[in-house]
């Protein structure tokens, strides 16, 4: 089949699904709605696979399929096509999106079957897939931006899906507006790049990027990439714009899995990787990215320690993992960033769906303090969740281990790296191991704290099949990128991942001095440290939350105010509303009241008063007193005469 047609079908299939479900959005026939949506995404998935195979057939340097459908905007020199490109990076993304997407669609049929808005839900979900595909396939920044905003819109609609709850609608709004702040910076970034390079085509931008790194903070590339990165902090929930993601858990759980874990939130990382040629010559931006990523990774992890809502824990975990990915791209490990993106998509989607399964079983209960001992009620969910847990805490040989280890190694060894970044990464890993174990322990292990009226039950096959598939992927997903030091030991399995991405990724040199042997030793030891610490941390958490009742409370008490602060999410939301939002609203009210009503309107009234006053003054001159009239004549004559005489 023609490759362009494949891309067209890939894109249009979910859109058609959206329309099919959209026009009959009031229907409650969940089987029909779910089938339409799932089949639409499956078709896309098949297209993705075909495109991927097509790419594989091509020689490595020419692995790029483009399709220009029409000219979208053309003004003067600014010409943007509705053009899409499949290359090494985007092919992985479309596989993840459509693959994981299809699984989540399947899961949703089971999860949402009781909901009245099920058809609308599937329509939104398909629309999201469509926009996400535009985002990853768009070959210029502007076409990417179309998807970028489009997924934001879908996220808005899906977070606020149960709109009758004011808080949920507000969460949707918060997500959209916070994203918009990033988008505004993204737009500026596009302008800077367009004015500098005269194009927004990402392929061309990478080609045109200067070869020498830009050292100035105010250079065009640095500023442009910095702006794009601010855009990414909005979409990918990094400091300071991460606040929307935890609230976004108001949406249905499969949505959290699809949008707020696996796909949309990774758009920022994807964008940076796509533009790696540009970012790599802006070391200042890279440094900022790495620092922000590391800081987010640690901070979100600490908040994750104290949360009791199962989805909130996962949300902060997502923020933290995204921080990891930014740390990766920030130190120039674009491949590792993408790698972690993929493995994270697998295990985090798995965990979200697992939590969905738990919530489903618990009749919409999300508080982990009211769970416990669910292992015997939900065996499949527990088993899959367990695998996801191993993956996320980075236990070898599960997927998370390889990607996380790659990132940590690069953070240490890259020329952009630093030991502190590495330390932050390890700290993040340790914290992650702790709160994830805590989550496992409180939810599935230990004694049951389930309310008597609730009878947990295992979910139907529609929900467990995706869990199983994702669990398998979480286990084996990391095997495509086994680092050299390990592969050397186990029989030279090639690093498929690096090999695949090589033509499109620019690399920074590693700075570790010494012979190959020293380097290998170093890598081994670092790996050992991080895995060991994580394991100890996980074990501690296991003991604390299953064996020793009340130990956690004691720790919490010991830390007192610090615990409270972390539990309240460092009061960032409160600070934002007290420092930015409320003053803005109050200020606007004053602006309206003072400027509009009291200054401008009053001023115009003053003018009318002046006219009216002038009129009434002239009116008062006309008294009817003839002698006064005669006086006016006299004065007039005097004035006229003196004017004549003075001349």
């Amino acid at each position, binding site marked *: 089949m023609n490759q362009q047609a494949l891309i067209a079908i890939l894109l249009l299939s979910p859109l058609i699904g959206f329309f099919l479900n959209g026009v009959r959005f009031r229907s409650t026939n969940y089987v029909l709605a779910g089938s339409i949506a799932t089949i639409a995404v499956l078709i896309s998935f098949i297209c993705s696979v075909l495109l991927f195979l097509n790419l594989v057939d091509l020689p490595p340097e020419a692995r790029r399929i483009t399709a220009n459908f029409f000219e979208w905007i053309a003004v*003067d020199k600014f010409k943007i096509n509705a053009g899409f490109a499949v290359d090494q990076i985007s092919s992985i993304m479309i596989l993840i999106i459509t693959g994981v997407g299809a699984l989540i669609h399947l899961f949703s049929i089971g999860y949402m079957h009781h909901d009245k808005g099920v058809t609308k839900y599937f329509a939104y979900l398909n629309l999201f897939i469509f926009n996400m595909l535009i985002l990853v396939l768009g070959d210029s920044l502007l076409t990417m931006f179309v998807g970028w905003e489009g997924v934001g819109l879908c996220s808005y609609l899906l977070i606020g899906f149960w*709109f*009758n709850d004011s808080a949920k609608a507000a969460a949707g709004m918060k997500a959209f507006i916070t994203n918009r702040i990033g988008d505004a910076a993204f*737009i500026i970034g596009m302008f*800077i790049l*367009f004015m500098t390079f005269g194009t927004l085509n990402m392929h061309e931008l990478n080609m045109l990027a200067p070869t020498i790194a830009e050292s100035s903070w105010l250079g065009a590339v640095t500023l442009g990439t910095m702006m794009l990165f601010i855009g990414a902090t909005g979409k990918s929930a990094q400091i300071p714009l991460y606040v929307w993601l935890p609230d976004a858990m108001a949406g249905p759980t499969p949505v959290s899995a699809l949008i707020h874990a696996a796909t949309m939130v990774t758009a920022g990382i994807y964008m940076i990787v796509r533009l790696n040629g540009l970012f790599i010559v802006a070391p200042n931006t890279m440094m900022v990215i790495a620092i922000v990523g590391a800081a987010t990774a640690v901070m979100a992890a600490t908040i994750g320690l104290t949360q009791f809502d199962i989805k909130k824990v996962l949300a902060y975990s997502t923020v933290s993992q995204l921080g990891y990915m930014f740390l990766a791209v920030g130190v120039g490990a674009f491949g590792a960033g993408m790698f972690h993106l993929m493995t994270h998509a697998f295990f985090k989607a798995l965990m979200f769906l697992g939590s969905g399964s738990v919530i489903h079983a618990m009749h919409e209960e999300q508080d982990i303090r009211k769970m416990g001992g669910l292992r015997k009620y939900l065996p499949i969910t527990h088993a899959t969740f367990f695998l996801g847990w191993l993956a996320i805490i980075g236990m070898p040989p599960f997927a998370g281990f390889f990607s996380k280890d790659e990132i940590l190694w690069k953070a240490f060894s890259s020329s952009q790296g630093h030991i502190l970044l590495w330390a932050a990464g390890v700290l993040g890993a340790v914290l992650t191991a702790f709160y994830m174990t805590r989550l496992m322990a409180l939810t599935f292990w230990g004694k049951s704290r389930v309310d008597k009226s609730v009878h947990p039950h295992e979910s139907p096959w529609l929900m467990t099949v995706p869990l199983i598939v994702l669990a398998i992927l979480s286990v084996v997903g990391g095997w495509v990128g086994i680092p050299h030091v390990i592969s050397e030991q186990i029989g030279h399995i090639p690093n498929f991942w690096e090999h695949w991405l090589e033509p499109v990724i620019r690399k920074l040199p590693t700075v570790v001095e010494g012979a190959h042997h020293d380097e290998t030793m170093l890598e081994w030891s670092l790996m050992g440290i991080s895995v060991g610490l994580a394991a100890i941390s996980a074990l501690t958490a296991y003991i604390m939350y299953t064996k020793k009742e009340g130990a956690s409370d004691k720790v919490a008490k010991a830390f007192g105010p610090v615990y409270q602060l972390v539990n309240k999410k460092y009061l960032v939301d409160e600070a934002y509303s007290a420092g930015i939002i409320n003053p803005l609203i109050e200020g606007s009210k004053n602006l309206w009241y003072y400027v*509009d009503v009291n200054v401008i309107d009053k001023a115009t009234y003053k003018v009318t008063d002046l006219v009216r006053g002038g009129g009434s003054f002239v009116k008062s001159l006309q008294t009817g007193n003839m002698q006064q009239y005669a006086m006016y004549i006299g004065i007039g004559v005097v004035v006229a005469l003196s004017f004549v005489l003075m001349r």
Partner: protein
Amino acid sequence: MLSALIFLPIVFAIVMAFWPQKNTVRHLALGFSLIEFVLSLGMLQKFDSSTAALQMVEQTAWIQRFGISYFLGIDGISVMLVMLTTFLVPIIILGSWNSIDKQVKGFHAALFVLQAAMLGSFLSMDAILFYVFWELSLVPMYFIVGIWGGSRRIYATLKFFIYTMSGSMLMLLAIIFMMRLTPEVTGGYISASLLDFYKLNIPFVAGEFLTPQTLLFFAFAVAFAIKVPVFPLHTWLPDAHVEAPTPGSVVLAGVMLKMGTYCFLRWVIPLFPEAAEHYAWIFIALGVIGIIYGALVAMVQPDVKKLVAYSSVSHMGYILIGLFVMNAYGVNGALYQMLNHGISTGALFLLIGMIYERTHSREISKYGGLAGVMPYFTIAFVIVTMSSIAVPLTNGFVGEFLILLGAYSYSPVVAAFAVTGVVLGAAYMLWMVKRVFFGPKGELVKEDHHPLLDLSVREVVVLVPLIIMIFWMGIFPNHFMDFSKASVDYLVKNKMDYSIPLSPNQAQAQEK
């Protein structure tokens, strides 16, 4: 052709006024407006978009002594606005099917006169003829707001009228002054033709305020700025919008505001290029202030209609910036944004009118949870909201993006400030949507005695063309921009020595 376009509505208005049957007035008006629309489509068919030349010219002497002629012509700058006008009127008539219940004949007659006046001011190429149409447009609007308006309609009409009128006076003065200058270029006789005005070379001294070009520039600019409206002169707009009946608001926001921005492009920039360039920063600054100020004030409005009115102030700020950065991106974007704003804000006012018909309230705080009761209405509203806040693939994005790009190439600082409008725009619109449509059911939505029915077939028919346009213009902007591109590019390139060519050959010659 153009004369027919202008005067057919007047004929319609007269027929309307003497139509004997009361029941069929609306059907008749709808039919007439559709005839007009079809006629304008015919015009579009004949329009040659490849050239910047003035087309379909009609010129006859009118008041020969003062060189005033009946001079009509169309080029890329006006063609889409003409289409917008003829497109919106049938929608307005259908949209106001139920909301206008007194003096139906008079209303439709006024609407047709208004249409004629608006078309006239877009099409006339003679200063005095233009002025006549410009002023004529005030009169029916005055009646539409004054007769069919809300409770404070007299205050609002007066404010609207006096504001616009005081600007017009300045403009008339400036027109007469310029007519007195024309003998220099026409070889001795006075002329009011815009083409002769373009030939004038009015002396300009940078920094000196009391020079002819600067004074004329500000006289025209203030007149148009009131109409747009630009920031400190905007306070008539919210009042007029709130008091106007739905169709009045739609015409006002959809077309009348565009008369101001169109005239900036047709008159101010080409006639006084040096002054416009020298003082552009003032208008760009006002545009930026308008964007931010309008958005902030819109955010805290308790009344939906007022909110949309202030959002108009914000959007018009974008257009103003686009015009005054005077590069191809900005001007193309601004022209496109005029159409977008006409469609999306028009649609917003129609939607608000629909809900107002049902509940007779526009207080945001009394709504809530409307989405559960009126899902189709909500879908339409959210789509239009997305267009208004410029989500890609809706029309608003293309215009806004190009304007921002133009602003960036003028000065990154301007773009940096203007781009805050993107965020604030989303904030006030979505907050409003949240309060009206989402959350628990509000006071008005809960009440049982007026059941809130979802959109009727008529209302769907009203909204569907607008929504189609929103997406069509967002996905295929070239279909629309191609009409104006030649003219705009020509204007941007030759703005210092501008004159609309009368034939394509002349255009090419001047190009070289």
